[in-house]
């Protein structure tokens, strides 16, 4: 039987009522729900194997070390990398901060960090800090169109991607616009000028196949919780030769080869970047999330995303006065919209009464919002367990809200 057939039964959280209505969870770009298999992996670890890794010689420690390293190999397979290229982090934000600090330490005045106008604050603020500290400059690849419908302006690449660019960083999929960026081409162009490329895959990792070799990035960062894994665990992938020359950001136990009162030598990657006790249970459960998504087939997940988002886009476009952001064609599993008369916060509060979990606000994208003349939008973001029937409830709810506020 297809694992898709009874997919909603795999997610215990979906079977509840909110304000007396069935929960319709459309905030998946913020975090995805967890299947039973992932929850069980956490429980199993704490009930049977809990012990520190790489330290003890006793049975439990060997079991947990083995499970932790198996999870690393699983994540490597998930993105077509080697296990030694997988560093476990707390999430995307920690991964980017590690890179900003470690890569940033090598920047000099006059060097350029090139990013885009559609980055999440987490892929913007750490680079701003580094630029401030080193005297490097940040430049932005612009977003095209009044509603950002054109995505990134690639015609500006020739002008912006100069040999002064030492770091190029870009999101794979915008968390506000749903636009899928051509990261393969962007990384190839960055490499041609000798820039290190960093891809924020937070929104793409759980939504389709992702092959770091095909993308050609030097670094790829993502969080586990947007791909059915637990919160507090994520991955920093680094191409082996890049990791070898990268200094750790955090130091302490577990990452050192030898320590004297005077100094210390680091272990090789990936341990060099994992100071302290890691999120062992989280890593193991994230490995289980990889199994779960691969059983569904990630190409099928991408198809489901496209079809549901296309349906939502078409239905929402019929609502008078709606302003839809991002591309009209291919997009990832989310739709962001705004109305001139009704604020996103009021929509989210009203929709909550209908059991709908939406996101309203700037989505950690304030500079982009400002550029588009908005303070915020309402966002509905979809995942593997969402249905067209749920989107119909969303549309009905929105029409009712607009009527209440005398708009639409």
């Amino acid at each position, binding site marked *: 039987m297809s694992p898709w057939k009874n997919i909603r039964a795999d997610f215990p959280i979906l079977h509840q009522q909110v304000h007396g209505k069935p929960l319709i969870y459309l905030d998946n770009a913020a975090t995805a729900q967890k299947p039973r298999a992932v929850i069980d992996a956490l429980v199993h670890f704490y009930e049977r194997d809990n012990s520190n890794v790489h330290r003890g010689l006793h049975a439990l420690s060997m079991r947990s070390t083995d499970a932790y390293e198996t999870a690393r190999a699983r994540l490597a397979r998930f993105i077509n990398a080697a296990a030694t290229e997988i560093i476990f982090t707390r999430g995307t934000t920690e991964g980017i901060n590690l890179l900003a600090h470690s890569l940033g330490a090598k920047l000099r005045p006059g060097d350029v960090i090139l990013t885009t106008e559609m980055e999440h604050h987490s892929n913007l603020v750490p680079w701003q800090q580094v630029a401030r500290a080193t005297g490097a400059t940040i430049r932005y690849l612009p977003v095209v169109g009044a509603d950002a419908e054109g995505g990134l302006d690639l015609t500006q690449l020739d002008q912006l991607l100069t040999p002064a660019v030492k770091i190029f960083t870009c999101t794979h999929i915008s968390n506000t616009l749903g636009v899928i960026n051509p990261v393969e081409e962007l990384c190839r162009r960055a490499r041609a000028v000798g820039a290190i490329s960093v891809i924020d895959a937070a929104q793409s990792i759980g939504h389709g196949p992702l092959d770091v070799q095909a993308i050609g990035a030097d670094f790829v960062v993502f969080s586990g919780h947007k791909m059915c894994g637990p919160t507090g665990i994520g991955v920093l992938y680094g191409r082996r030769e890049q990791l070898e020359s990268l200094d750790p950001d955090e130091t302490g136990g577990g990452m050192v080869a030898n320590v004297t009162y005077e100094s210390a030598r680091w272990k090789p990657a990936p341990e060099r970047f994992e100071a302290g006790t890691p999120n062992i249970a989280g890593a193991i459960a994230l490995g289980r999330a990889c199994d779960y998504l691969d059983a569904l087939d990630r190409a099928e997940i991408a198809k489901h995303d496209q079809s549901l988002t296309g349906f939502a886009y078409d239905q929402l476009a019929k609502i008078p006065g709606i302003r839809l952001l991002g591309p009209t064609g291919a997009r990832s599993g989310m739709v962001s919209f705004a109305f001139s008369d009704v*604020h*996103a916060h009021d929509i989210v*509060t009203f929709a909550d009464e209908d059991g709908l979990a939406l996101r309203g*606000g700037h989505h950690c994208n304030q500079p982009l919002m400002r550029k588009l003349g908005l*303070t915020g939008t309402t966002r509905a973001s979809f995942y593997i367990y969402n249905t067209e029937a749920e989107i119909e409830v969303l549309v009905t709810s929105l029409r009712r809200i607009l009527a209440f506020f005398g708009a639409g």
Partner: protein
Amino acid sequence: MSGDLSELYQQVILDHNKRPRNRGKLPTANRIAHGDNPTCGDQCSVYLRLEPPATPHQPEQISAITFDGSGCAISQASASLMTTLAKGKTAAEFESMFKNFHEIVTTGQAPEEISDLAAFAGVHTFPARIKCATLGWHAALNALKSAATSTLSESLTR
């Protein structure tokens, strides 16, 4: 619509949202402050004129007050209503009125019969919206404390 929701979106709130009072910049303002709600990106600026009253030896009063910015129905209505009640008040009187307002939006209980402010009692069942309701008030409090233009980033702790 549920009881809680109609309690939150009272007629007086919808009215102030649709037809905000005292909206815009105040050219004669001598105190200005700006408030941000970092959760949603909403902004509210308050412009007011503080001047001595006609009677000598009395504390300064708010002789004029306006607001502008962007935000949800709750934040806009609250700021609008706040400006209608602030006129003629001293800084101390305004602070005491804010205390009452804060009590209303956090507990749902109006300490005494105080005009339209009681319309915001429904906010207390939506804790995430308390920051919306108090955005303009915090900006006004900051304006009263400032000697010149200043910027306020509203504290996340209420």
